[in-house]
């Protein structure tokens, strides 16, 4: 309510009141018009202010709905009694008990624990569950095992601990306050709007002062000159524009919310559009965030499994009997189960009890074989040894489903090299072959290849226990291991990966063609990171890293020419030792960069590095400790599903589906809105000249005032509002994702061409059209154009009640005033009619309207209809309210400016035609905005 145009309007309002004050002091009966006008101006300022605030508040509300958390409860021992109290009532020294599934209510030091594991991923980015015990292991509180942190989750076991920090003093609280410490500065669109306001204000003030001086030197009274100044300011300031921009941005924000991008502040929409670097997380954003079987190796062959989201298309050869055995092992040697009550849920969406790999295997076999539970029932499990980190295998013994086969089947899976050690034969095409050197080599090749893809590989083997040694009544003992665990038959390998989302490669390609650099920042192992980067196209198929080149040429890494490599994989360890210059060099020189094994703190360093390159940086993140980086980024994007509340708070945008592809949609929308804002502003600026010229002509040539300030306000805040919003619905002219992101310092929203074309070309044509209508109305009532020149003083004098017109008729002051209002209405209609043409030509900046389609954007027609309806209401409905200065206008006058409107359209089509015909020419440079 104070910045930009508002100041100009405040000045206008105060000038109005001062003018009235002066009039009043000399003449007690001075008309109240100036007071009304001043009040209207203030009202405009206040209304637009309230409106902007309301829009802002509305989007903030969307966000705050995220923050609603269920009040957290804590089980505390006080006065030797266990009590449940709200977590915020905890104090340092309280003893609390936490069990699996609970959130840790404060930072606590562990006193005792039973098998406790916590999920610290939101804090440190480590996705593996961390064990917690009372043992002190490290000086650093983040590393030591005996501290559990506020807001992390206890996954299993129980823990009793003493509260050592609460609220803002917790580690999370520190990070959150660090995030809020990072300055919240202007968005690119805010800078653009400020720039635009400067231009318009500059024009308004300089023209205003220039004509003030002219008016004074033409011997006008200072008071009159002040009133002219007000008129010039009002004519020049697009009062409705800021509200329009706000609405336009919020509309886009709404549209983006439908596409799963929830934008916190509307302005961030455009920031996303000007993004030139995206620093993306891997897990969950680029990938599906679930382990999935990607490859199989059996019969000396690698098979590719379908890793798409629904797994529906498994094309590998399932006829081999080796597959039959392998599938049996996969099905049986697996403890994972579907949670009950999900009969109608698609398999891939069913919730599973079990770890990530077993879940992957369960779903994989369920998709291929059908009801896994039924198969397991038929092959009753006799005994099993679950997986543990010392023996690195899992084993179970089953009865077979063949009633004639009384043998037991032992199935085993585990780390491939451990499994192979236990085998003496290998199954090929359903037959057991001795495991010789060549087959072992084949195994190793396959294992290395799959491992090189960054996949987690498991080996599978089985053994049919001879029926004579192990009769049906044999009692197996897992502690005594009274059954063989060697000389088994190796069946196959199976590798799993968290596969990329199917939409991501496409999205990355789109980013690339849109000139956006996608950088992957992940805590994962470099090999996995690189594999995923390759599969989604962050590292393109034909580009190599320094290490790749070294490997290919068989030379040491140091000898590789740095410039030969297009891609780089940088680990957190390397990053730690780098100076910021070195980091800049990497960011500038490599097109494709993957940061692996990075800590979330290093993300901030990377973001700062990117910003030093003058880039607009988008960062995705989900953890609490990502929040400083999210805050630091030009646009922080938090994950809606996986994201922590702190991350969502720090971010400017929330991805509801955690999907990278949604970011690209957002970028597209952001770019579109930038283009469309240009159109809106060009549309709005144009009529300012048509509103300004009357004042200038009035001062210089002394014509009766062609348009009043109130009437101008009715255009700016009445007829023009809906059409300018309608331009926000305009479709893109060309593929906006095929051009570079705009340079935030060079590609301005309002550039010279836009202002010049709007003001000096179309604006001028509009002014002429409106003047023609004005002259027509006056001429047909008796005042021909030449009689109007220098008529102003007599015309406005209350003491002349028999002013002669061209025909010798005599007019009283009121009759003239009424004609003047008719003139206002005519000028208003003239501008209105031509603004329709202006609206249509603004649909495109380069293409012909006919290429774009006149009727594709229906909202434009709603806008045009609204313009006409508001115009009709003002002229015919409110024509009897004298305070508004509108009168009934004869119907034919609505068509006087139509030829001018058509002329505007034709002129603009010619402009666009030359721009298309001669790209890069003088015309293109001067006429394309």
């Amino acid at each position: 309510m104070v910045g930009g145009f508002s100041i100009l309007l405040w000045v206008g309002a105060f000038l109005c009141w001062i003018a009235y004050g002066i009039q009043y002091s000399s003449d007690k009966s001075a008309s109240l018009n100036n007071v009304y006008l001043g009040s209207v101006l203030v009202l405009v300022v206040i209304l637009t202010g309230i409106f902007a605030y309301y829009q802002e508040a509305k989007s903030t509300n969307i966000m705050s709905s995220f923050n609603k958390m269920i009040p957290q409860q804590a089980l505390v021992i006080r006065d030797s009694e266990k009590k449940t109290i709200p977590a915020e009532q905890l104090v340092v020294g309280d003893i609390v008990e936490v069990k699996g599934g609970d959130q840790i209510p404060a930072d606590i030091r562990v006193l005792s624990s039973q098998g406790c594991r916590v999920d610290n991923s939101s804090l440190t980015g480590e996705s593996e569950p961390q064990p917690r015990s009372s043992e002190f292991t490290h000086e650093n509180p983040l590393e030591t095992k005996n501290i559990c942190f506020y807001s992390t989750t206890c996954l299993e076991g129980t823990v009793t601990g003493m509260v050592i920090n609460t609220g803002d003093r917790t580690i999370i609280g520190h990070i959150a306050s660090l995030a809020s410490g990072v300055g919240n500065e202007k968005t690119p669109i805010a800078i653009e709007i400020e720039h635009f306001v400067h231009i318009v204000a500059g024009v308004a003030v300089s023209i205003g002062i220039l004509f003030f001086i002219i008016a004074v030197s033409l011997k006008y009274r200072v008071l009159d000159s002040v009133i002219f100044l007000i008129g010039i300011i009002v004519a020049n300031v697009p009062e409705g524009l800021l509200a329009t921009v706000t609405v336009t941005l919020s509309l886009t924000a709404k549209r983006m919310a439908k596409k799963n991008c929830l934008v916190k502040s509307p302005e961030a929409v455009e920031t996303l559009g000007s993004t030139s670097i995206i620093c993306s997380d891997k897990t969950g954003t680029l990938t599906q965030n679930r382990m999935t079987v990607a490859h199989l190796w059996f019969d000396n062959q690698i098979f590719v499994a379908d890793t798409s989201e629904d797994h529906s298309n498994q094309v590998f050869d399932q006829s081999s009997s080796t597959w039959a055995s392998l599938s049996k092992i996969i099905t049986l040697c697996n403890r994972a189960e579907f949670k009950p009550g999900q009969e109608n849920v698609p398999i891939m969406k069913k919730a599973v009890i079990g770890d990530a790999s077993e879940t992957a295997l369960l779903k994989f076999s369920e998709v291929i074989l059908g009801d896994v539970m039924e198969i397991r029932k038929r092959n009753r499990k006799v005994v099993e040894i679950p997986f543990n980190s010392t023996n690195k295998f899992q084993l179970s013994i089953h009865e077979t489903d063949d009633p004639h086969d009384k043998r037991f089947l032992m199935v085993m899976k585990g780390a491939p090299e451990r499994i192979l050690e236990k085998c003496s034969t290998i199954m090929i095409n359903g037959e057991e072959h001795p495991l010789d050197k060549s087959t072992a080599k084949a195994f190793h090749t396959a294992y290395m290849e799959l491992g090189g893809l960054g996949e987690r590989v498991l080996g599978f083997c089985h053994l049919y226990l001879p029926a004579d040694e192990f009769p049906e009544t044999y009692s197996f003992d897992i502690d005594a291991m009274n059954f063989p665990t060697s000389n088994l038959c190796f069946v196959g390998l199976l590798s799993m990966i968290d596969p990329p989302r199917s939409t991501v490669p496409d999205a990355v390609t789109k980013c690339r063609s849109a000139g956006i650099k996608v950088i992957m920042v992940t805590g994962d192992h470099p090999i996995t990171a690189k594999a995923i980067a390759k599969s989604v196209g962050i590292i393109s198929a034909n580009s190599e890293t320094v290490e790749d080149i070294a490997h290919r040429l068989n030379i040491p890494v140091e000898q590789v020419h740095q410039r030969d490599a297009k891609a780089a994989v940088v680990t957190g360890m390397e990053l730690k030792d780098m100076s910021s210059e070195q980091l800049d060099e990497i960011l500038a020189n490599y097109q494709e960069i993957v940061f692996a094994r990075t800590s979330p703190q290093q993300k901030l360093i990377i973001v700062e590095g990117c910003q030093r390159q003058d880039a607009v940086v988008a960062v995705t993140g989900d953890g609490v400790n990502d929040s400083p980086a999210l805050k630091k980024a030009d646009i922080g994007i938090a994950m809606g599903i996986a994201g922590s509340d702190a991350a969502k708070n720090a971010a400017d945008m929330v991805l509801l589906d955690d999907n990278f592809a949604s970011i690209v949609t957002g970028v597209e929308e952001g770019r579109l809105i930038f283009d469309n804002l240009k159109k809106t502003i060009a549309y709005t600026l144009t009529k300012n000249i048509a509103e300004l010229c009357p004042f200038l002509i009035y001062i210089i040539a002394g014509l009766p005032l062609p348009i009043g300030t109130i009437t101008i306000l009715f255009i700016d805040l009445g007829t023009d509002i809906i059409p300018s919003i309608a331009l926000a619905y305009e479709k893109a002219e060309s593929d906006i994702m095929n051009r570079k992101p705009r340079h935030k310092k060079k590609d301005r929203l309002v550039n010279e061409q836009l202002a010049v074309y709007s003001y000096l070309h179309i604006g001028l044509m509009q002014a002429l059209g409106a003047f023609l209508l004005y002259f027509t109305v006056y001429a047909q009532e008796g005042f021909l154009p030449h009689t109007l020149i220098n008529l102003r003083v007599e015309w406005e004098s209350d003491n002349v009640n028999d002013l002669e017109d061209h025909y010798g008729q005599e007019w009283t002051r009121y009759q003239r005033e009424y004609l003047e209002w008719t003139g206002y209405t005519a000028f208003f209609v003239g501008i209105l009619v031509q603004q329709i043409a202006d609206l249509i030509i603004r649909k495109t900046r380069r293409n012909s309207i006919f290429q774009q389609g006149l009727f594709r954007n229906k909202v434009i027609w709603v806008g045009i209809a609204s313009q006409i309806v508001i115009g009709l209401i003002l002229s015919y409905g409110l024509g009897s309210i004298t305070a508004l200065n509108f009168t009934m206008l004869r119907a034919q006058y609505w068509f006087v400016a139509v030829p001018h409107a058509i002329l505007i359209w034709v002129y603009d089509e010619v402009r666009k035609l030359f721009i298309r015909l001669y790209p890069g020419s003088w015309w293109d440079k001067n006429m394309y905005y």
Partner: protein
Amino acid sequence: MAALQEKKSCSQRMEEFQRYCWNPDTGQMLGRTLSRWVWISLYYVAFYVVMTGLFALCLYVLMQTVDPYTPDYQDQLRSPGVTLRPDVYGDKGLEIVYNVSDNRSWADLTRTLRTFYSPAAQEDSINCASGQYFFQERFLAPNHTKFSCKFLAAMLQNCSGLADPDFGFEEGKPCFIIKMNRIVKFLPSNGSAPRVDCAFLDQPHELGQPLQVAYYPPNGTFSLHYFPYYGKKAQPHYSNPLVAAKLLNVPRNAQVAIVCKVLAEHVTFDNPHDPYEGKVEFKLKIEK
């Protein structure tokens, strides 16, 4: 969101501005080289010449379509305005104050009246006495015009300034001239001549008697043969009919408000917005 704008020092800005004004490397002035400036100026000159031409053409067409004799519309001129001479305006409308014994205080007023009377050349006008509307379908007068009826100051008799050059101001019975605004082809009534009627706006109680007025021409009528008016081009020598009202019993040393209405069927005087439509109100104070 992070910072996108660096702060520049004032000297840097000045330097940038200077470079914008004159860039020695590229020879650009204000962002364009000289030849570029010439080109763009030529374009604008051509563009504006064409636009001005078009506008002039439009105005020319407009002038061609406008009837030279009669305006196309008279939306605002439904009923004529009425004015008063001498016309001295105060804060709110007409306010006439003079001192009977101080002839300087009314010299201006009488001069106004005298100049108002000094008639334009009426030699082409004819004498009319019909008292009926003087309709003229064709241009029978010299130079393709229509006849106008003469209106001579002498018709105002005592208020003509001929017999009494002071217009009654000295004796405290001043003459006021009531004029009805000209409207092309306006017919004030259906047959009877429009008549001026002056009265106190609020009857002064202390006087207890109505305003006494002597009207010239007798009855205060505008003779119908001055109507209809055919416009300046058809009747270049048209002279307005006038009515003089000699106020006979204006109290001394008190401000009185007087209203003079034109009474005719087609003249209205009840427009709340227009105080001069069909009537004229004025305040008069005669000091002694």
